[in-house]
């Protein structure tokens, strides 16, 4: 399981900035825990676990980009936001990042706040805002949902990558001079390509789930127009 990683490793961003973002991430995650507890029922608990496992698995797929030593991978924020909602979704991505940092050395432990802010908070938030907006405009068909998934995944990846640029601007350990714009451009371009891949995977996955088990898609449940929610039969028989 040797993989190349794009998570920020120790020493890229200086200590104080990492500390500030750790505090930001901690506060945001506390909020997510409080809101997520309300969402997490018997149906969402296994789904949250599977979404996290799925993200963990797809994060092992890495795209080596050019020769600059930059590599990126799928983030999964949009998938999480669609299937388990923004609060539990952000927690799912955070769990993936925490376990990867603790056990796989993927991304520095001291940089966890930065990584969580980028991928779990920024990525999921951008994705969910787009999903909420697009689902109001687009038809509620499998195609509409797939388009929503594709666009939100694409944008969320680019937003998350720009989070790194901002952090590097605030506390990069090496002054790149005027090259910051270059860094922003490279990151955006690279992640646009990754975003297309991520968008396709997210769209196919969510479209399949929505076709067979629409009750499992959080975004469809939560963003339903004002009609009363249809009762969902218990799955598995035993409760």
């Amino acid at each position, binding site marked *: *399981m*040797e*993989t*190349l*990683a*794009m998570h920020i*490793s*120790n*020493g*890229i961003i200086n*200590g104080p900035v*990492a500390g500030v973002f750790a505090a930001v991430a901690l506060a945001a*995650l506390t909020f997510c*825990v409080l809101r997520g*507890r309300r969402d997490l029922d*018997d149906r969402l*608990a*296994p*789904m*949250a*676990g*599977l979404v*996290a*496992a*799925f993200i*963990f*698995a797809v994060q092992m797929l890495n795209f080596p980009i050019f020769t*600059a*030593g*930059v*590599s990126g991978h799928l983030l999964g924020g949009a998938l999480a936001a669609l299937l388990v909602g923004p609060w*539990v979704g952000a*927690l*799912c991505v955070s*769990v*993936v990042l925490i*376990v990867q940092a*603790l*056990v*796989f*050395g993927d991304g*520095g*432990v*001291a940089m966890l706040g930065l990584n969580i802010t980028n991928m779990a908070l920024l990525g999921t938030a951008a994705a969910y805002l787009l999903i909420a907006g697009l689902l109001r405009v687009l038809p509620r068909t499998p195609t509409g949902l797939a388009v929503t998934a594709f666009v939100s995944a694409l944008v969320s990846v680019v937003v998350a990558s720009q989070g790194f640029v901002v952090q590097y601007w605030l506390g990069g*350990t*090496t*002054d*790149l*001079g005027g090259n910051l714009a270059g860094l922003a451009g490279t990151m955006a371009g690279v992640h646009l390509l990754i975003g297309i891949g991520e968008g396709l*995977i997210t769209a*196919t*996955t969510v*479209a*399949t*789930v929505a076709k067979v*088990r629409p009750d499992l898609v959080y975004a469809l449940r939560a963003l339903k127009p004002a009609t009363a929610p249809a009762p969902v039969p218990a*799955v*598995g028989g*035993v*409760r």
Partner: protein
Amino acid sequence: MGAGHAHVLYRDIPSPVHRLAPEVKIAAMVLFTVAVVATPREAFWAFGGYAVLVAVVAALARVGPRWLLLRATIELPFVLFAVALPFLGAGARTDVAGLSLSVDGLHGAWNIVAKGTLGVLASLLLAATTTTRDLIVGLDRLRCPQIITQIATFMLRYLDVLVGEARRMRVARISRGDDPRFLWQLRGFAAGVGALFLRAFERGERVYLAMLSRGYTGRMPAVWQGSDAATAGQWAAAATVPFVAVTIAATAVALT
């Protein structure tokens, strides 16, 4: 399943480090990493001290240097990023072997390589000596919110479900005449990724219901039984590592 699946990085050998309670190891590892990151980059000797500390713990845990170094290649992309810094960096420049390099960039590169490597080695040591089940028990005992440990438990459990289901689908494809080779199997995989997710979910839901019917309430039994929780002695033993690291860091800050 109840025995806890060991992950690929776990080294199943007896050692004093393996016997430590997980919460102690997690706390020590996090504090060590923070101390390393807080060290000013000009204090070259300090990083030597940290390296010795890592080597001592590795020897105690009976983890070989070859194993560690091979798995540390995970940080290679950032090392490559670091190599580019001396060329990209701004400010004063110096000549090394005929190349004009940025002093700040050189320092930055050293900073990334040294701190990154030490961080990766520390987490590899944690991974080599702690099973994933213990890791979650440790996080729970460190007062991690239950919703997070619950998601983490299911994530690690469902990874195996996901892998198993993918294998079954691949066998099914092959037995129906598909001949997946190298890149061409990507198409079949991409078309089936939604189905894979759904099948894994339905299997995972059965796993979850089976756990519920056997009395699962959201925490692992080992946590509320508290049988192998860390003793004061274990905390003291493990505290030596962050204590030494913090001393080194404090000295380095004072000197520079």
